[in-house]
């Protein structure tokens, strides 16, 4: 399994490949691979999504993305 940290100014549900899969600012455990990462409503964030490979991560060194 791999690890993802989605940074955002507040706690918000994280949407991975169309499914809610954790919250911002906490480490999300997920399957290795190319994933689409976005946030749940309201759509007040930029960019609208990331498409990134989540690979070669550990729980103390997760793949990081940030929404503003």
């Amino acid at each position, binding site marked *: *399994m791999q*690890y993802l940290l989605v940074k955002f100014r507040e706690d918000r549900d994280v949407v991975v490949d*169309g499914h*809610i899969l954790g919250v911002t600012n906490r480490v*999300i*455990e*997920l399957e290795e691979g190319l994933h*689409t990462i976005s946030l749940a409503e309201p759509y007040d964030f930029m960019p609208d999504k990331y498409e990134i490979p989540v690979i070669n991560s550990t*729980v*103390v060194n997760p793949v990081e993305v940030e929404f503003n």
Partner: protein
Amino acid sequence: MLQRIVLILIFCLLSSGCATYILNQPLESYEPDQGYRFPAIIEDDSPDTQNSDSLFVCLAFSGGGTRAAAFAYGVLEKLHETPIQWEGKTSSLLDEVDCISGISGGSFTAAYFGLFGKRIFQDFRVRFLSRDIQGELLARALNPLNWPRLASPKFNRIDLATELYNETLFDGKTFDDLVARGKRPFIIINATDLVSGQSFEFTQNQFDFLGSDLGKLPVARAVSASSAFPFLLSPVSLKNYTPPPEFSTPEDIAKGLKNYEYNRRLWHWAIRHYEYLNKSERPYVHLMDGGLSDNIGMRAIENEYRRSGGFIRQRINSAGRKSGIKKLVFIVANARTESQDKISKSDIPPEISEVGFKTATIALDNYSFETIESMRDLINQRRQTQDTLAQCNRKILECPSVQPFPQLSREIEPIFIDLNFEAHPDPEIRKELQSLPTSFVLPEEAVNQLIRAGGELLENSADFQKLRQKLQPSVPD
């Protein structure tokens, strides 16, 4: 007299032309939240108030005919007899079972419990375990009244089996009846797609790709497919319809198709679904015994654990919600047997029948072993990850100027319990269990022994003992 024979022959020919298998129905509209699926994450307003998300229990019932069905029944019985206290409620561990994945013989027990709940403890022995299902099937096949139907290319031995299970065990219930119960466990009945060789799950998520409404299908049909042992029974056929216009490939499957470079396992899972959308190449799907692709039933559960859309994965990562897993328990009831080694004692090379049998079973046995170990590895990895993070953050506390690492969405306690005959402490009983055949008829004493073994092996499991201790109801002063 001759006239009468001619008339009978004409009647037979006409009725054989009409005989056809139960056809799955097309899906009238695509609604991703409707139908036979594990419900989407909801706050605790489900009518199933007894079963929490926080203690999440999944069972895998292997194949192996009546042997597997009885062994699985013994496990259910023991869970039923295990009182627990969880989040202020007193119940039995059986009340906390959330999903059961069943293969072949194991799918009978899983489906019966899914449809009728605890009634299983009143009548499943009489209605299934003690019956000579094989003999009854043979009697139907030899009944001249069925011959005209069996002469039809669209009606086969498996259709007689479906009728038998539908009439005498599942009372004509369909998957809509499972939905109407509004209760967990979610039952996953697994078969094997004869073309791809991959596992085929009787869930609406899978049927969406066939443009078909699983709800209308008798549960007996799914169980027949799951237990359609090669050569003895014929395959179950499904029609692959064009899905309703509003259907679009779910995002996790679409993303999986882009994962050839990054995760071949995920890509393979996605392509396996996507291929059903090629309607011109695959207008029909033919299914056989689930044991051909996974004789344990654990792969369906593993997919729900790994995949971003999996109902287990979502509950592992759901932080800050009422719903979400705290304790995750997997129990595998594996009724595998070990045939006695006669080959090694002889200086003559084994006969072709022996070589044929070994060729058919060796790969499957190895795959089953790896299936269980793969899940055990996943559970250990999760435990290790949580320990590593906790240890690092404890060390960081010693340096007040350093920020701790972010927490995982949720900390869970994963438990994996693998039950098999090899672990039976009594060598005599172990030998007897190991020598039981894969068949749909067993002597009453063997059935009783298997039920006892299911309970005893669970009772003897060190992980189960720890779990039970933690969940033990407090005794009032």
